[in-house]
């Protein structure tokens, strides 16, 4: 997928404090449609807070978050997901533990399939048809994620790596245009890292999904990203191509180290 010069996400002077502690003090950047953008920075630099602010989990104190030109900073999370087609993962892998892997995926895509809240109470033929389509799509993604053998098991009983793959697959269920990944590679083995990276690349190139990825595994991230943004103490320290970022002395001092 080629990168277009059409900003899908624009973050404008976003500020957010937790009490007297500033987490973001005026962050600005754009994400173009079709890009994979890496977001790095030391712990506590505001990366996850930025994700929270873009997805409605936290209200920003001031500034704007524009998704395709619409300010979504006051939208609740579920609306951003449904109408904005913006989904995210969490730092700690979370799945619906009591539900099967397949049901996790169906639920992840369900709200995209039913036009209104009332229609989800339907049990008629149209609801059944929608559910059938959802199940087919869920099974396709399960196949791609390599989880076919465990699709009928409760997600809570899957291994950490399998849960990670399940989480990634569930984010693709609602056919998103923008995906925010919070440390997708943390705590998984090298083989699985390859698999997750391949899945991100595949979704980006084949389906045109735009990604913003927080990751401490900088080698992999530099290889994956078109562009990298560095946050430091709640402000943007640098924004450039991966090659330029690794040579940037301010970034090396603050985060990458010698």
């Amino acid at each position: 997928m080629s990168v277009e010069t059409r900003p899908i996400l624009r973050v404008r002077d976003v500020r957010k404090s937790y009490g007297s502690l500033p987490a973001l003090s005026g962050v600005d950047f754009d994400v173009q449609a079709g890009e994979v953008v890496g977001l790095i920075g030391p712990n506590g630099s505001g990366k996850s807070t930025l994700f929270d602010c873009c997805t409605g989990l936290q209200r920003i104190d001031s500034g704007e978050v524009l998704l395709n030109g619409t300010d979504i900073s006051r939208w609740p999370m579920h609306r951003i997901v449904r109408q904005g087609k913006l989904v995210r993962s969490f730092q700690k892998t979370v799945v619906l533990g009591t539900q099967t892997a397949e049901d996790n995926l169906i639920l992840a895509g369900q709200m995209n399939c039913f036009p209104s809240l009332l229609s989800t109470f339907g049990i008629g033929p149209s609801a059944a048809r929608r559910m059938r389509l959802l199940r087919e799509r869920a099974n396709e993604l399960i196949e791609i994620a390599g989880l076919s053998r465990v699709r009928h098991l409760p997600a809570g009983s899957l291994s950490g790596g399998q849960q990670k793959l399940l989480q990634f697959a569930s984010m693709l269920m609602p056919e998103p245009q923008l995906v925010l990944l919070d440390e997708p590679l943390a705590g998984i083995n090298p083989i699985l890292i390859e698999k997750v990276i391949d899945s991100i690349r595949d979704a980006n190139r084949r389906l045109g999904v735009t990604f913003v990825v927080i990751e401490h595994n900088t080698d992999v991230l530099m290889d994956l990203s078109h562009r990298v943004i560095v946050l430091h103490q709640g402000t943007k320290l640098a924004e450039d191509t991966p090659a330029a970022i690794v040579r940037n002395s301010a970034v090396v001092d603050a985060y990458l180290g010698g």
Partner: protein
Amino acid sequence: MAITLDTPQPQGRHLPALRRSGLVLILAALVMAPLYLQNYYLHALIIAMIFLLPAHGLNLILGYTGMLSLAQGAFFGIGAYVAGLLAIHLGSPFWFNIVAAGALTALIALPLGIPALRLRTVSFVMCTLGLVVIAQTVAKNWISLTKGDMGLSGVPRPSFGWGASATHISSIPGYYYLVLAVVIIATLGFVALIKSPAGRCMIAIRDNETLAESFGVPTWRYKLIVFMLSAMFAGMGGALYAQYMTVVSPLMFQMYYSNTILIIVLGGGVGRVSGVLLGSFVFVALSEALRITPELRMIIYGAILLALVFCFPQGLARLVEQGMEKLAAVKGASKEALTHER
């Protein structure tokens, strides 16, 4: 190796059939109960089935959405008052009263739920407890409507037409069949609800609310709808109770009712339809059976509950399920042995 359910295990294959035949047997026994049971036992079954409705409501909000509400007793009482007042003043038919009681209770739950659902965990539980106290105070003091502590007496028996000339159900077997029909419809409705996509959303809220929200589920709206639906189930139960007992008083708001509903759901098996079905029959029957020793009744009841909580924390339904799994395994094994012999 992880076990996949694609290839059913020998014992698993017989489980659905066993479950189905068990259900059919119980249903048949219930339908024919008036033929072989005395009125006293029918009375106990009627009470058990009436309590099943608010228990369904509590199971929906606690077992499927993960919020403990003690307000079921309040909504049960409100439903009883609504049905009682309608029957007394309008002489309206039974179906009208039960629908009105369900709808009105759900409507009353709406403004109560909006502030209550903003609270989390313990605060929410306390708030629902407060609703019971408020409901009782209103019932005691709105004397022009509720006749205060005296309560409503002489609530007409259920009828199928308007006015005094309508046919009334006055026999216990007649009322038994009426309640059985309502309970079957309500249970089928409940199953349809939890199997619907909305039911899936509720389970997601129970498992992880933030994750559900990140899947695009408007969690707050669903919680409000669930709160209203659980109140509706309780209100319908209250309507059945009012027209069966023919008396409605502020005693309906005693914690006894909320507790009984809670015991049915927790003891039977929270988050399982079968648990609530089993719980309502076992615990209401137990309470009735223990009337033979009035002094020791509550002590024995409490001891049995304690034993249950310690020995089977997942409820009676899980116990029965384990028994059935064993039975199915034995059946599967004996069938397999037969095929080997051949």
